[in-house]
């Protein structure tokens, strides 16, 4: 499963809405760790979508996959 960490819930939902329009199944969950604090995790549940494909799509709407965990 591809997991992408995103800072704000608006960006996370923007990403989810965009991927779903492209037929890629995903969900948004709350995430937390001691270094990055509170954030959101976009979990791509679609086994057919690779991380590279997802990140390329998200990059086109200004959502970065580079937020470190």
């Amino acid at each position: 499963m591809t997991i992408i960490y995103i800072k704000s819930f608006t960006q996370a939902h923007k990403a989810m809405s965009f991927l779903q329009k492209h037929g890629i199944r995903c969900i948004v969950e709350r995430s937390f760790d001691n270094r990055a604090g509170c954030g959101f995790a976009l979990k791509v549940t679609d086994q057919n979508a690779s991380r590279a494909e997802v990140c390329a799509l998200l990059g086109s709407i200004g959502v970065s996959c580079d937020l470190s965990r």
Partner: protein
Amino acid sequence: MIYLDNAATTFPKPQAVYRKWAHAMSAYGANPGRSGHEFSQNTAEAVYQSREKCAELFGAEPENTIFTLNCTQALNFAIKGVARKGCHFVTSDMEHNASIRPVYAAVKSHGGSCTMFEAVEDEEQTVYNAERAIRPNTAALVCTAASNVIGLRTPIRELAALCRRKKICFIVDAAQGAGTLPITLKDGANIICAAGHKGLYGPMGTGLMITDGAYPLNTIIEGGTGSASESITQPDFTPDRFESGTINTAGVIVLGEGVDFVNKLTPEKILAHELTLCRRFCSGAEKIRGIRLYNNITQTNLELYAPVVSFNIGDIPSTEGAAMLSSKGFYMRGGLHCAPLAHKKIGTINGGTIRFSPSAFNTEREVDMLLKTLEKIALK
């Protein structure tokens, strides 16, 4: 009751808005973007869907579409956010207090200054007047899309082009234009501030600040955002940067329903309908002896006006006139409409005016009934 005070807030709201309100209070009762449980996530998703609708209406990205409590709060965020030490602001001479008060507060706290330009019916002249007011240290031009007193529209596209040429931020007060006038970021504004409860038919307690992200804004309110919680400084990303504390969750979800209503009817058709009512009102009122119109909307000047008409009944003070009409079942607002500059401009600063402002729900029959009542009052 015949409600004609829609420039203050639209009433009634579409039936779908009432239904959504009842639904939202129970179905979306968790805090969005805070907790991780399903209830909170569902609420966050509903908030996002509404944000997306609002963004689309103004040609913006969802993350640059910030929910506020009203247009005034949005204008405060924008004006005080762009203010810097010694900065200069340019405004028109018909701004609402929602703009002019934050401008003067920003000028006072930053040791800056402000210049007002005269907005007139001749759009080229308005732009020329605005350009003459700009200085090398001008931070922003703050301008209403349309006067809330006399409905006079300002040439938004041309003023935006001027601001881009001069490299200054253009902040549009769209309180009276959102939902009817064509105001989007594509027209060149950097920041659009709007009320959710007027032309967008949402509930009171909702507003929007739409930005193109070109100008970094300082914050005037800081706090919890549910994001970047490890940091004691405010997030630098939007909308979180400007949405500290719990938002009016049910309100903004319902606002999306109002935007749906506007999109379904289309802003162009709503504007045409409301201007038709204004034209009918002006045409009838100017024939009644004793009625004084301060802006006369006719077939030939429709494009210059938003659907707002100011008038008085003889020498009767506007608030008394509005009270007389209220007793006959016609609800309109008398006084200065929180816009003393516009009233100074038309010479009514001492008595104010009565304001006629229809919505998509008003009818020609209602206008005719008002005219008959005005005739009776004016004859006395």
